[in-house]
């Protein structure tokens, strides 16, 4: 079998470690002995009884939700514009312009945002031209983290939505127009319902990526801004509390999964109602 080496590689490099981690999450942590073999739910119970960790999870969820919603609102017009109003060559160029920031890496991209949001940075200098003085307060704030995340996620949203809009038959829009519908009506009644599955997958992608974001909360949020991914890193690599870190990782995955599946089911049910 030609696929066997690849499957073995993924099984050893990912599936086995994940299984071991799931097992570890049921172990007991001792400050001096570190990990002790056990079968206990104490790590999960610790998470759900400690308001600090609940706060971390809650912050991760609302920041991800908000970033995804803003990406959706900003991504739809751009993706539609690229699909309908731009020629082939220009589109190719714009795609590269959107893809370079996407593939530049989170460390570099976040450093670019630090330069802008900094109190002595680009935005402050720009606002200073209009007489604005004093602190911006965007670094080390939720607003700053959301801005940083949106710039990470927007390219994903635009690329996903663009291919969805391109697959929608343009004649449907022309038909709506010839029947006298305004552009907004066409978007609301024809294009968006047809694009709904794509909108959903784009939003799910953005939500998952921001739930797991590491660089943006660490660098823009600063040491007191806690989100889930940096907390997992801290518990496993710094504190060496593997059982609790493993539990955190699985809670992060489970919450992401439950929320994305839940929202997908809800939206699809509503969609069915629309199309009836």
């Amino acid at each position, binding site marked *: 079998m*030609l*696929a066997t*080496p*690849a*499957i073995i590689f*993924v099984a050893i490099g*990912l*599936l086995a470690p*994940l299984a*071991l*981690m799931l097992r570890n999450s049921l172990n007991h942590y001792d400050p001096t002995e570190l990990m002790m073999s056990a079968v206990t739910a104490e790590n999960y119970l610790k998470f759900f009884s400690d308001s600090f960790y609940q706060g971390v999870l809650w912050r991760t969820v609302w920041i991800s939700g908000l970033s995804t919603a803003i990406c959706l609102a*900003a*991504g739809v*017009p*751009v993706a539609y*514009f690229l699909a309908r109003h731009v020629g082939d060559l220009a589109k190719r160029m714009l*795609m*590269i312009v959107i*893809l*370079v*920031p996407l*593939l*530049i*890496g*989170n*460390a*570099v*991209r976040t*450093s*670019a945002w*630090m*330069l*802008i949001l*900094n109190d*002595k*940075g680009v935005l402050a*200098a720009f606002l200073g031209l209009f007489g604005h003085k004093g602190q911006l307060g965007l670094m080390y704030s939720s607003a700053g983290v959301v801005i940083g995340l*949106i*710039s990470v996620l*927007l390219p994903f949203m*635009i*690329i*996903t939505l*663009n*291919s969805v809009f391109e697959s929608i038959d343009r004649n449907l829009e022309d038909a709506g127009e010839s029947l006298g519908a*305004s*552009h907004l009506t066409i978007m609301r009644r024809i294009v968006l319902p047809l694009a709904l599955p794509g909108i959903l997958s784009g939003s799910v992608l953005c939500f998952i990526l921001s739930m*797991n974001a*590491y*660089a943006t909360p*660490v*660098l823009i949020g600063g040491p007191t801004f806690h989100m889930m*991914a940096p907390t*997992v*890193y801290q518990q*496993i*690599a710094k504190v060496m509390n593997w059982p609790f870190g*493993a539990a955190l990782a699985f809670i*992060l*995955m489970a919450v992401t999964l439950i929320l994305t599946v839940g929202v997908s089911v809800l939206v699809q049910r509503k969609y069915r109602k629309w199309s009836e």
Partner: protein
Amino acid sequence: MSNQEKSVRLAYTGTSILVIGFIVLPLVFIVWMSFFSNKILSFPPEGYTLDWYRRAWEMSDFRNGFFLSLRTSLIATCVALGLGLPASFALVRGRFKGRETINTILMSPMIVPGIVGGSALFVFFLEVEFLTGWRIAGSSIGLIIAHSLIALPWMIRLVTTSLISVPPSVEEAARSLGAGPLTVFFRVTLPVIRSGVIAGSLFAFVNSFIDLEKSIFLVGPDSTTLQIALINYLEWNFDSTIGAVATVQIGLITLLLLISDRYAKLSRAF
């Protein structure tokens, strides 16, 4: 064009300029900033200098990090090529049960969040070390394994899409003329899917090169990848050295994207 159409078009163009500007401007600023002569980073620039590039090069963390990243990503791309090419072939041409399952397994490194996969791999390596005495975590072998996992799904994804567009009859024709399976693969199939392989390799390389979440657990104290060196530096300092390193990376990746754009429609990779 009616007035209404004009205003609709204007609204789309305006929004798109704003949004794309929001995505691109930060990179423009950081490239610009890499030439500032300001000692402490601030706007506007006091003057211009190339000194930060020299400083970035003189910092061993960045220099060594760059070469470690380059080497790791190159090897990872080769591993992904060696494992992914036959696997893609089996996925597209094979007729067997459970093909969907195999596809899901092979794509799972892309689906499982980097921070979860990275931490799981780290703990796994340490357990292996505990049992056998082999030091993998913090070694270049461990890093290469992690990065090959990042690269593999991208390779398979791009190679399978280009394989799908090649009809199996091409291979059957060569076979009926007496060519062995290996000859068919290297002389017929590979040349046709060349663009997919190149695009797959470039995407595998780039995504491995910029990885942060998986690598952060696996780098050693004296050997970090460029991305980890960047984030470590950024946690305590912020000056134009970062701009210089960022500019070099932006240049390198833009170049690779321009090359892959020649071989495959870029948006298809996602």
